[in-house]
């Protein structure tokens, strides 16, 4: 290794003269990738910053927009609401997902593959779907509306419905992270604890929980960020409960106020950045929990525990499938809730008359391009970075930018893109709207597998 590194170090100063031109020739792909990332990732974010310190005519106004934001009572309410919404969602999702993941990884329940699949089903559904389902179930005409007073609620719209729907959407993400963090443990630690006469509860607190600590922190961060940036759920079931993600939409699309939109976008970015930094710190500190001498932990049957966790898993699965089933059922019902006979007329109507005919192919085409181009670009980029030599400062720059979408909610990026892709003071055309949405979809697609 050192023998190879030494001559390279000697050559470095000599090569530096023509290095940029030379690097561009040999690392064309990397430069192209860098340009792409700059144009579609860094530039929109930079534009977000620039717009946030400009007035409508494009003149620099410093923090005037932020001051204006702070003085807008409705936006302040939204901020508090967004945080409350994200807080409750995290509070519910993470323990629930932990229990579910624990059941799969650390107990001897049967049909684990089935439970795992069911937990991941909501990932396939857009977040609007649970929101709609909860309206069908608990809304003003909901089938289970009578249940609400039992838990002290008068209606589902607003915070309770949003949290429920968001719990449903965020659950698979949290489960995936926690499944991974509970997958491996050193059996010897459990044996050492047992030999020292440890109660099951203390063993859980001192061995299991610390072992899953990083996964728990990661899951909390992801869920919180998802909830903060969530747009669909509050839009549908939020009622009059204002949140930032909807505000930003109103500012940009409704009022054409890009500058205030940019301010809100930056504020939305804040928790994501905090989450990213925390996650990065945590990962850096994380030491190998398993050494080559560790023996992987395998749970042993324990009747009471296994039955309890099986009950939990079945309950969660029934709710999951029920919520999705409700939406599917709702789509076939003639006229909710007055005429419950089944029909396919919504589908035919949707495709024939409500514009779905055009919108659906658009979505599919967009998704296909994302899948094909996204996979190709990611693969090529990773290959160029890992399998080519040299490249100098280009590689770290790409690496850093590749991490950005992990911390930037798609919505923020979308706003950034629409900020940057239209000339100042130009009216918003329909084409820019589409541009923005495709960009945010792209980033959210890239976020999910990356996490």
């Amino acid at each position, binding site marked *: 290794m050192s023998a190879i590194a030494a001559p390279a170090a000697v050559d470095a100063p000599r090569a530096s003269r023509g290095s940029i031109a030379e690097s561009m020739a040999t690392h064309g792909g990397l430069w192209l990738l860098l340009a792409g990332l700059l144009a579609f990732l860094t530039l929109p974010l930079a534009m977000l910053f620039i717009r946030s310190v400009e007035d409508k005519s494009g003149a620099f106004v410093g923090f005037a927009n932020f001051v204006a934001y702070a003085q807008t009572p409705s936006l302040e309410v939204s901020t508090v609401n967004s945080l409350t919404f994200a807080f409750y969602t995290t509070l519910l999702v993470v323990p629930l997902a932990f229990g579910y993941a624990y059941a799969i990884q650390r107990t001897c329940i049967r049909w684990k593959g089935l439970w795992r699949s069911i937990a991941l089903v909501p990932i396939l559904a857009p977040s609007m779907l649970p929101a709609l389902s909860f309206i069908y179930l608990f809304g003003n005409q909901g089938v289970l509306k009578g249940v609400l007073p039992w838990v002290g609620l008068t209606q589902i719209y607003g915070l309770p419905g949003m949290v429920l729907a968001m719990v449903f959407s965020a659950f698979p993400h949290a489960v995936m992270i926690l499944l991974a963090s509970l997958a491996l443990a*050193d059996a*010897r630690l459990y044996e*050492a604890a*047992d*030999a020292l*006469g440890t109660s099951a509860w203390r063993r859980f607190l001192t061995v299991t929980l610390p072992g899953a600590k990083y996964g728990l922190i990661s899951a909390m961060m992801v869920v919180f960020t998802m909830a903060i940036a969530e747009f669909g759920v509050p839009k549908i079931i939020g009622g009059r409960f204002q949140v930032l993600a909807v505000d930003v939409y109103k500012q940009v699309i409704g009022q054409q106020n890009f500058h205030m939109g940019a301010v809100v976008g930056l504020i939305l970015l804040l928790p994501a950045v905090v989450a990213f930094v925390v996650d990065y710190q945590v990962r850096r500190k994380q*030491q190998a929990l398993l050494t080559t*001498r560790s*023996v992987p932990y395998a749970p042993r049957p324990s009747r009471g525990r296994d039955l309890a966790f099986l009950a939990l898993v079945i309950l969660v699965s029934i709710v999951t499938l029920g919520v999705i089933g409700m939406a599917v059922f709702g789509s076939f019902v003639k006229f909710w809730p007055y005429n419950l006979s089944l029909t396919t007329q919504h589908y035919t109507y949707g495709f024939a008359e409500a514009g779905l005919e055009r919108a659906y192919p658009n979505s599919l085409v967009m998704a296909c391009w994302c899948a094909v181009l996204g996979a190709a670009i990611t693969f090529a980029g990773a290959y160029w970075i890992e399998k080519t030599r040299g490249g100098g400062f280009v590689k770290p720059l790409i690496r850093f930018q590749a991490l950005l979408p992990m911390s930037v909610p798609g919505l923020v990026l979308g706003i950034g893109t629409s900020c940057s892709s239209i000339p100042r003071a130009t009216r918003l055309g329909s084409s820019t709207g589409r541009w923005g949405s495709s960009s945010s979809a792209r980033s959210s697609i890239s976020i999910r597998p990356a996490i």
Partner: protein
Amino acid sequence: MGRRSTAGPRVFGGVTIVADGTEVLRIEGIHKAFGSFVALQSIDLTISEGEMVCFVGPSGCGKTTLLRIIAGLEEQTRGRVVQKGRDVSHAPPSARDYGIVFQSYALFPNLTIDQNVAYGLVNRRKSRGEIKSRVQELLSLVGLPGEGRKYPGQLSGGQQQRIALARALATSPSLLLLDEPLSALDAKVRERLRGEIRALQRRLKITTIMVTHDQEEALSMSDRVVVMRQGEIEQIGSPQDVYERPATPFVAAFLGKVSILTGVAAGNGRYKVGDSELTLPADGFSPGAPVRIYLRPEDRHIEGNLADLPNRLSGTVRRIEYLGTVCLAEVDCHPLGQSMLVSISLNQLHDLGIREGGNLAFALRTDRVRVFPEPSVQ
């Protein structure tokens, strides 16, 4: 190589330190099967108060399984474990009285050294002051006072293993179980810790069972060695017994180095090997029976007047394995038609001018030689 130097003074004196012979642990007819694989079959063993016993054998011989059954971490298919008169055959680990140290240390990485050592004491609801003073005492006992605030990751492997030892000893168990405690360590650290563990064990007079695959470790550290092979006990005895008087060819070959000569018994302690005849103090074979003669490299005379000695041999030194203090010469003995290992001290190597390709004359030292029947061809 260092076997004789480290083991020599300590146990070859023939002293077996067994405090008073009171039975601490009795294992009766232990049998363990994992599916169709039989890990242990009919193991019987009694361990006395204050004794240090090593289970030694190649990997897969069942030694670790036996230790884990004693610890209650594995359940036997059949048989009983009786600890101090109490049948603990089916008791969970927490209901048995022992401390255990694993090869991988298994310290709780998120707890400080103090908290690790105190772990078992907290489970027993000892008072804070009591725990504190006991932890201090144990940390000085293992030679690491003042490291209590650190985390396991900040200590070296050897230090971590001492902490694991302190944690195991914290509750003053009547039995200490060591599962290959030194295997993960560097050679130097291993050698030092070997001595320290043994000294500690003697000082505390704690009954100890150690599992190891390292025969040198087993010989140098234990009062009694249990040699295991394929789920069965081959021989139980003092290090001296098992090394000098191995009961089976396996024990002879597993502990230390041996040269195996094939020959034919000629009656009255005479054996025909190749073209020559050896007279050995081992009998019981009818003339004509094929045998295997097990000789240690040190079972030879190479200095002084060899002419008067019986069983004189000579041959060409094919290869010298230079090991420092003691070297091993592989000698092609012409009359035997076989080669054998001869140990030569560094001084002899130089004084006698022994070199590869040269000639070496020596006489067998036959007091420790073992003769076993040729295993029947299967």
